[in-house]
């Protein structure tokens, strides 16, 4: 038996030079860009908060049903409702001011229909001086000009990254989609254009059908799967990206508990995005997950997240892992 360290493990981490006192990041689109709700997430234990994605022009979003809890997570097609980048700047300013005393950095999020507009949106939200800008090239509920997400190909993902990097000196995070054959190739392409970090992943496209009416449940017909069902998909993506690039990853998708967070960091994430957990656990989800993570680390004698990060990257030989333990030895 090893004695438990008396001090709490160090839960701080870094994304592109920005320090987070907790590894939990409010995922984009959760609670919109309401400054008071972003503050609520920060008070509950989020180490950074991401605003709802904004687009150059305001968007009303899709009709209802737009989000449904189907038992293994959510399916949503909100349709990126947002007040437009110009109005967003004033919301971001208010939010950044309210978050500063809490020591919680603000991440702005942008999307657009063209590469050029991504650059313009980045320049606009940069006026509010968020700590980081997340570039959402992976929303499954809107289609870009050419009918597919920018996250679908290495070339278009790289072009957006380059346009954003040319428009602002604020570090940028590119948010990737799981719905691609080789996510590591996309990650390499955006890092080559200067992406400072990667968020993986956005939701996975899906559809629910109401048996009685024979109709799709969502008004938009299809939507994005988040929550529990997304976790194994997200873990694989994070593992593959971590093996391919060295920028920090915000591992996002199906993190509902402290153990889920441990798994995500073990797969190589620098920190962990949290969204759908709020449906089941309420606004206090962050404090619950943080507490569970702390207890998990402390009970196993880990002093910091660095000690568990990227453990899935270790070479694993089945002949070694299947060998029965030798009696009397302690495997550390």
């Amino acid at each position, binding site marked *: 038996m090893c004695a438990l360290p008396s001090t709490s493990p160090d839960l701080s981490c870094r994304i592109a030079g920005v320090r987070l006192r907790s590894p939990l990041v409010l995922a984009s*689109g*959760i*609670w*919109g*860009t*309401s400054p*008071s*709700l972003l503050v*609520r997430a920060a008070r509950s234990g989020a180490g950074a908060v991401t605003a*709802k994605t904004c687009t150059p022009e305001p968007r009303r*979003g899709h*009709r*209802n*049903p*737009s*989000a*449904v*809890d*189907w*038992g*293994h997570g*959510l399916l*949503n097609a*909100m349709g990126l*409702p947002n007040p437009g980048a110009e109005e967003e700047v004033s919301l971001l300013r208010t939010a950044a001011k309210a978050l500063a005393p809490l020591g919680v950095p603000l991440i702005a999020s942008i999307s657009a229909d063209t590469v050029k507009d991504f650059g313009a949106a980045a320049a606009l939200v940069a006026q509010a001086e968020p700590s980081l800008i997340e570039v959402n090239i992976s929303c499954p509920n809107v289609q870009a000009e050419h009918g597919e997400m920018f996250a679908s190909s290495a070339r278009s993902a790289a072009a957006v990254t380059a346009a954003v990097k040319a428009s602002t000196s604020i570090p940028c995070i590119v948010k990737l989609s799981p719905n691609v054959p080789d996510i590591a190739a996309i990650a390499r392409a955006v890092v080559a254009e200067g992406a400072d970090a990667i968020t993986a992943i956005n939701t996975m496209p899906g559809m629910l059908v*109401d048996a*009685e*009416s024979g*109709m799709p*449940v969502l*008004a938009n017909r299809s939507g994005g799967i988040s929550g*529990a069902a997304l976790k194994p998909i997200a873990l694989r993506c994070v593992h593959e990206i971590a093996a391919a690039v060295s920028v920090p990853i915000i591992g996002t998708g199906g993190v*509902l*508990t402290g153990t889920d967070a441990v798994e995500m960091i073990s797969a190589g994430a620098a920190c962990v995005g949290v*969204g*759908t*957990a*709020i*449906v*089941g*656990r*309420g*606004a*206090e989800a962050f404090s*619950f997950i943080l507490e569970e993570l702390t207890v998990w680390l402390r009970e196993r004698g880990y002093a910091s997240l660095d000690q568990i990060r990227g453990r899935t990257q270790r070479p694993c030989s089945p002949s070694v892992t299947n060998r029965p333990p030798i009696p009397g030895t302690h495997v550390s």
Partner: protein
Amino acid sequence: MSGAPREAACQHVAARIVEKTQENARTVMLALDAALECIPGQFAMLWLPGVDEKPFSIAGADPLSFAISRVGPFSERVHALEPGDRIWIRGPFGAGFSAAPGRALLVGGGYGAAPLAFLARALLACGGKVDAALGARGVGDLLFVKRFRDLGAAVHVATEDGSAGMRGRVTDVVRPLLRAGGIDRLHACGPEAMLDALASLCTETGTPAELSYEAYMRCGVGICGSCEHNERLVCRDGPVFTIPTGHASGS
């Protein structure tokens, strides 16, 4: 609010309309053949596939009922439904009213009375006394006057055009009742301006109150943020909020 990471799914259930009652010029009461474990003040999302999905207060649990006022495209379509037709529901959502003995004043503005007859039955069942103050623009918008009378509640009515009861706003009948004393709690549902006026009256008279707010809802499950009102989520923290603390009611 629960610390459990996963709660039961909340998917749509197809229900059949068993009874349709005209309550006033623009409101029908629909009784459905489905059941929801719920308390007064909670709401459900009603869905017509291919049309839309909107939030409505649960107006009764046995049978499950909703009072729907015709105000726009969705409620128009619901009004066109007849007994035997189907409507889809999911819920219940939100924090409802709390029931306690004592003398309660229930204040409804327009279709805001929808959850209050359900609440009145719950209050009377646990030994409480009920006064109801109902307000509307005119007699055609007054809801549930007869239902409250049939329950044995003392009913006070105000209309802005004077077509029924006292001429004026519902707060004009509530003010003297609160100032006279003897009301232990106030429960209200209706337009925001009415609720804000009631909040000041209750603060002034030291009357504990539970106020049910409306907001524009998308997800209904507390994740999208579109229903925020005064830093709280109406779909999840509310729709019932307590005064003076502003916290969700203890349901």
